[in-house]
């Protein structure tokens, strides 16, 4: 009997303890941010935007960009090209759909998309302290930058994988699996973000605002996005739009907000709703002195905001290589940079500070390098071949390099001694992501595609003339038919953007990745490039796990 009583007592005690827990769990935590109240001020929204920029600084992002943009193409020899490693398989195009680098590229760019979506989806929770026009502009610029960044991440994805799933801005557990959009739909989504950002941002940010994505960055990236949709040799609306934007950016043609948005053809949205969504001050609240941005409102001019003269942010002359170093940060030719310094507090272990390009690619045992033959192929007699460096040669600041015998590296990856951070976890310089020269060469290429060879040559030579100042040369590009001019523009692109991780995307876009890599494979004992399959390897496979976890809703690319 006593045994029973004892058991009942224990049971009652247990019930009591358990029911007590309930109450404790229900209590709300006070004084903390939740996702409901987090975005209610500009500062909090800015914090979310900073977190999006953070992705660009991450090692995963940098790493993925050079592996795919440079190591797979025909300007480098990799230290790791054995078929037993994932990297070797990647650059030989003999990978399977579970390749780890393909998966990492997918993940890091979607991580960026997700963070940008946090800003975009929550912007309407911000409460303004007053109704000043400037308050709206502050929020609008944060939103615009988030749109630019989202476009940048999606552009990386569409270049790599073709059409990809467009993630909803607000994610819930009910819609985790999203089918892929088509290539056209994905591009349209990117274009929309960039066109809106181009209207929302300032043409260039300077001094303490340097590093923010500007309208220049949005328009420059938009031109690239349009160019990637167009095919060389085939007339298309996309080429015409690149020309139109080039006239606006380079030649100073005026452009209205509705022209930039292509409002008439792309929008069903009422103008005022659109304005409110993009955080232009609502018409009914506008004061007498506040500007009103109607469809015919002329957006800020970009001409002269950037030049390709080698001058720094204050207009003082710098050297060609300084464009890539600390001295040339935010220089007049730099449109968008991935800023590494601001988060560099010197502590190690924070991957978002970014290992420097210098320590990864230049300092010791570079994972990729060129040889004499490659350098000759890229540069020929061009003066810019002097901006590469070989075994035990002296850098511009007189450092004897430890590059292996027979290997050549680009000085674009170098960081001068005086700029090198004390802590290895930091990066000594920003990564140049988009330069004004790119805009001009895209403009030239589009002009040629639209049958305007004479003006294309003029644009191409406008930059060559600047390069000529380096060695007092007078050699310019020569006029010719469509094919000849196109080849000269492509040659200039290869030289000027060499080792900026652009080469693979460029040859794919130009439709000659297979032939370029086949030619390259004949130069290499390990025949790297021979296995590139035309019509298949221009895009990579969707990571196998994405196909698996979606139970086939996310379909694989053809050929994989």
């Amino acid at each position, binding site marked *: 009997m006593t045994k029973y009583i004892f058991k009942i007592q224990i049971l009652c005690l247990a019930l009591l303890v358990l029911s007590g827990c309930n109450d404790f769990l229900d209590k709300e935590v006070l004084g903390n941010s939740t996702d409901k109240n987090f975005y209610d001020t500009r500062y909090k929204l800015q914090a979310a935007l900073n977190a999006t920029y953070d992705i660009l600084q991450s090692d995963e992002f940098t790493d993925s960009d050079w592996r795919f943009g440079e190591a797979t193409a025909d300007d480098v020899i990799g230290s790791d090209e054995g078929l037993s490693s994932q990297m070797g398989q990647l650059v030989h195009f003999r990978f399977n759909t579970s390749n780890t680098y393909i998966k990492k590229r997918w993940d890091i760019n979607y991580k960026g998309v997700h963070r940008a979506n946090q800003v975009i989806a929550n912007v309407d929770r911000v409460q303004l302290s007053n109704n000043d026009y400037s308050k709206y502009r502050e929020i609008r610029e944060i939103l615009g930058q988030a749109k630019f960044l989202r476009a940048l991440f999606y552009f990386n994805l569409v270049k790599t994988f073709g059409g990809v799933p467009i993630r909803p801005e607000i994610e819930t557990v009910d819609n985790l699996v999203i089918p892929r959009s088509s290539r056209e739909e994905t591009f349209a989504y990117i274009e929309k973000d960039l066109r809106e950002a181009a209207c929302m941002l300032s043409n260039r940010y300077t001094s303490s605002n340097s590093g923010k994505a500007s309208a220049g960055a949005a328009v420059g990236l938009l031109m690239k996005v349009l160019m990637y949709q167009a095919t060389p040799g085939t007339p298309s609306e996309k080429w015409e739009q690149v020309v139109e934007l080039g006239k606006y950016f380079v030649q100073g043609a005026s452009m209205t907000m509705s022209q930039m948005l292509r409002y008439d053809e792309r929008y069903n949205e009422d103008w005022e709703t659109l304005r409110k969504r993009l955080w232009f001050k609502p018409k009914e609240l506008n004061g007498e002195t506040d500007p009103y941005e109607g469809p015919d409102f002329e957006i800020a001019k970009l001409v002269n905001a950037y030049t390709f003269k080698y001058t720094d942010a204050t207009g003082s002359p710098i050297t060609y290589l300084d464009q890539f170093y600390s001295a040339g940060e935010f220089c007049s030719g730099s449109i968008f940079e991935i800023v590494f310094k601001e988060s560099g507090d010197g502590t190690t272990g924070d991957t978002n500070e970014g290992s420097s390009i210098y320590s990864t690619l230049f300092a010791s045992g570079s994972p990729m390098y060129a040889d004499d033959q490659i350098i000759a192929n890229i540069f020929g007699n061009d003066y810019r071949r002097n901006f590469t460096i070989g075994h035990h040669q002296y850098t511009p600041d007189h450092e004897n390099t430890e590059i292996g015998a027979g290997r050549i590296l680009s000085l674009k990856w170098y960081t001068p001694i005086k700029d090198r951070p004390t802590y290895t976890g930091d990066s000594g310089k920003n990564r140049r992501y988009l330069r004004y020269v790119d805009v001009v060469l895209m403009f030239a290429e589009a002009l040629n595609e639209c049958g305007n060879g004479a003006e294309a040559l003029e644009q191409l030579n406008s930059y060559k003339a600047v390069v000529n100042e380096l060695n007092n040369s007078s050699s310019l590009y020569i006029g010719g038919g469509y094919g000849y001019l196109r080849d000269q523009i492509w040659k200039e692109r290869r030289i000027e953007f060499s080792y900026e991780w652009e080469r693979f995307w460029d040859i794919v876009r130009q439709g000659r990745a297979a032939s370029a890599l086949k030619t390259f494979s004949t130069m290499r004992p390990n025949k790297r490039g021979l296995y590139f*399959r035309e019509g298949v390897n221009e895009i990579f496979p969707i990571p196998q796990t994405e196909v698996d976890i979606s139970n086939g809703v996310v379909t694989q690319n053809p050929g994989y």
Partner: protein
Amino acid sequence: MKIALKTILGFLVIAAFTACEDDEATQPHAAMSVGKYIYDTNETMKIHFTGSAENVVIYTGDTDHDYELREASNYGLVVNKGLFTYSYQQPGTYKVVCVATNHTDAGNSIKRDTCSFMVKVIDDVTEIERLSAPQVIYDEVFANPVNETDWLLRLPRKIKFKTSNATVSLSQKLKFYIGSDSTKVYIDDKEFSSTAKYNLANVLNIKLKSHEGTERPYKLYTVNYGEFKTFELLGVQGTITRSEFDYSYYEINMTVPSGSDLSNLAPTFTLYSDNDKVYIDDVEQISGTTTADFTKPVTYRFVASYPNRPDITAESTVIVTVTPQ
């Protein structure tokens, strides 16, 4: 009693352990389903594994993945979650083998089951994507399709390069852009060579033969853009200026003695070919007969056509500007 109990327990424990050693893997079952058995090259083949096994690999039968050569370092590809996708690069017939395996933890017992099917990969590309003369002086000039079989290459007679005007030969190399490496090209029944020069004065009979054996004929026509061979007005000979950017655009700038009446003149001119026709607007111009008003620049429209093929034409423009001295 206690000792007896302990002994029994000891035996039981030993028995339990030995039983484990004899544990056998369960028999796996290999089975797969596939939508179809004939594919194009680079087309995705989807295989669903429908049997039951812990580990499944598929030997696709092509280079490095041949089941028969599994002892010679050929290997199978792992199947995840029952779905496997693959595509073949080379046409041919392949044996796809699925190997299903179960084994015990220590690997003492391994049981396998296999199943297989044959798949045929065909390469039947006979489509020309693009066709060009890759070395016209220095330029790559592309031909255009006129219809299903006929392609047309429009060439200028001369090309301006730097300060000289180089004559364009009708003997040119050709370059084919075709979706498959296995497709063979024949020109006038001889195998195409990328280094040989072909005489474009005649129609070239092109034949594409796919790996599968399908043949498709094409014809390549070449037409020179029309231009004036000579152009004379009021006793003055005009010289032609070319554009290095646009091969179908020419200018003639000439000066005539001052006081001449330019409003109603009939220039005398000669053409390179009887198949060239000259128009101002839609009125055909005849040397020494039809008149034009030269007080402002006159635009001549040339239509050069292939003999007996009025649908195969090259159009060009000559603008004549006359300035009184």
